[in-house]
């Protein structure tokens, strides 16, 4: 079965004052129908550029697609015309961004914005579109939707605005929902509501979700599969349960150990020494080598490819499985 979304060796670079650098450097993964894929990593790892790149929303210049393919049901989004891509976005591909305030237009009511999206994708009857808008607001559990449909974004709270964004993304029954840090700006109780809602909707409509986040807790609770990115590359890709039970890559191990836990108490947090190399000084070998206690000459000299290490489990590390190393 062809996956819904198949990203192959995606490369995106940016031109800046300090030079040209590759923000996304050969990223590959697939999203299956009805599944939820999480993309995690710390700031600057390229996760957001990946999601914008898939939607064809990279501003060029300064950005440039250097190579790769983004196959949506087998058709390459990157070689499509702009109008073909526009027909998919907001239609079969819905998007939710982190900032619910800046991604809604402040001078139109939320209803008008949902109706515009519905009409742009083929629903011509205005009255029908309004009814559908109210139905969508009800679906995302906005209280008294038939009244709130005429509210402006500033009249809603942050959580309510994010629910409107989700309603907007779901307006045309998308097959794929791309959510870039959808709950990062929200309080935890509201975050729990939004995540429940997204899970529930994907169960009900069968939409696949690609969730970009820095929060490992959110990933564990929401995703079936996980892609871990570091400095523009995928370092590990695995089913969520396997990844959280015992990550293979030293970076994933370090990241998980650094998360303070609510369920256990430790005296000291684990840290990953050092910091991510700056984009203009990427090493020739493994990008994590300078921070990795297991790094060898080989790690510093050449980049490890992503290779299979278990069922549906890929890791880019010369030394994995590391439990077989004797120190």
């Amino acid at each position: 079965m062809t996956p819904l979304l198949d990203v192959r060796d995606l490369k995106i670079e940016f031109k800046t004052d300090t030079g040209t650098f590759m923000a996304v450097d050969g990223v590959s993964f697939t999203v299956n129908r009805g599944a939820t894929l999480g993309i995690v990593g710390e700031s600057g790892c390229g996760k957001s550029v990946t999601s914008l790149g898939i939607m064809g929303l990279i501003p060029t210049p300064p950005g440039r697609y250097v190579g790769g393919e983004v196959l949506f049901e087998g058709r390459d989004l990157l070689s499509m015309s702009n109008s073909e891509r526009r027909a998919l976005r907001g239609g079969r591909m819905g998007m939710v961004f982190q900032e619910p305030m800046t991604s809604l237009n402040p001078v139109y009511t939320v209803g008008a914005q949902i109706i515009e999206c519905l009409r742009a994708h083929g629903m011509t009857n205005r009255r029908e579109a309004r009814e559908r808008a109210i139905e969508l607001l009800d679906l995302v559990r906005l209280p008294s939707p038939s009244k709130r449909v005429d509210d402006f974004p500033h009249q809603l709270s942050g959580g309510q605005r994010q629910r409107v964004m989700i309603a907007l993304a779901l307006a045309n029954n998308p097959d794929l929902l791309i959510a870039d840090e959808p709950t990062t700006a929200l309080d935890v109780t509201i975050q729990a509501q939004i995540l429940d809602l997204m899970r529930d909707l994907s169960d009900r409509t069968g939409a696949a979700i690609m969730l970009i986040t820095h929060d490992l807790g959110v990933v564990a609770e929401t995703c079936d599969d996980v892609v871990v990115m570091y400095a523009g590359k995928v370092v590990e890709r695995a089913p969520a349960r396997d990844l959280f039970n015992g990550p293979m890559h030293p970076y994933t191990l370090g990241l998980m150990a650094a998360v303070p836990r609510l369920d256990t108490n430790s005296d000291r947090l684990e840290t990953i020494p050092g910091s991510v190399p700056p984009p203009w000084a990427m090493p020739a070998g493994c990008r994590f080598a300078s921070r990795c206690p297991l790094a060898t000459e080989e790690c510093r000299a050449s980049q490890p490819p992503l290779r299979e290490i278990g069922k549906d489990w890929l890791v880019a590390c010369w030394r994995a499985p590391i439990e077989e190393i004797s120190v």
Partner: protein
Amino acid sequence: MTTPKTPALPTPVLEVSGLTKHFPLGGGFLQGSKHVVQAVSDVSFSVGKGETLAIVGESGCGKSTTGRALLRLLEPTSGSVKLDGEDISKLPPHRLQALRRNMQMVFQDPFGSLNPRMTVRETLLEPLLLHNIATGKRAHETVNKLLVRVGLAPHHADRYPHEFSGGQRQRICIARAISTRPRLIVCDEPVSALDVSVQAQIVNLMQDLQRDFGMAYVFISHDLSVVRHIADRVAVMYLGRIVEEAPAESLFADPRHPYTRALIQAAPRPVPGLRVASEPPSGEAPSALNLGPGCAFASRCPLATDLCRSTRPEIDAVDGGPTRIACHHADQRAPMVFPPAPTPTPALAARLAVMANARNSMT
């Protein structure tokens, strides 16, 4: 921290009673109708020497306003703040400046809280010279020592803030805060803007500094996991008031206030399939502009009754112990079932051991 620290001394470092900050809204469109935002209402707590009190809550609960009012960066509407027994809420400005030597602040945004036109050296020299802590050559030596103490190097002193990463900037802010050897540091979301791996470095640094210098922290945060890790005691705020205050251990083992319970249940845990089967609180929080006479959480509370909607519960000690809560019905709470902390799989334990061994053999 698992090890309890020395019990608070008779005179706490910080004693806050009845702290209130209301912001009047008026003029412009609202002319004639005066509204008041009750950002902080009747907040009382104390912090002992070398102790960490965390203030947690969601956005708009008044935790940052409380932090600023403590240092009089915002003038409180009423209430008193005592530092080492001295009431600072009425001090004239010149006395206040001298007093700031003993109470410092670290802010959330390490980009906005350093002057971009000052080198790190200039930034760190300022408090030293202002408070006559060191002058001349000794001041420069102190700057170098401070940098080393927070994990930077003396050669960083002549750089500008934009040359540093977020974590490094937060180290500079911390160096500035400890330069006057304060008794108290108010930290407002000091690690919220940082990535997980950097966050861990800064949290560890703050704990090391507290152990070495013995200052108290008021640690303001929305992140319960970080709070559990760093705090000795926790105060939970909701819409301007403390609803529960307890030692960290007991707060996380047996949260009493329905809001605290909702917060803990809603926090995502990095364990797949462990989603606590409970409804996140539904309903909407009331606006801080028109709080009714009852409990502010009543509109979202599963235990709420008519009593809650008509009469606000006062905060009171429970069983004579150190825990205080503001709830009419907390006795009726159902036992809270926590998902057990997962034991690491053998493969994970083996991998972590290899990593730890390798790291140890490098140092």
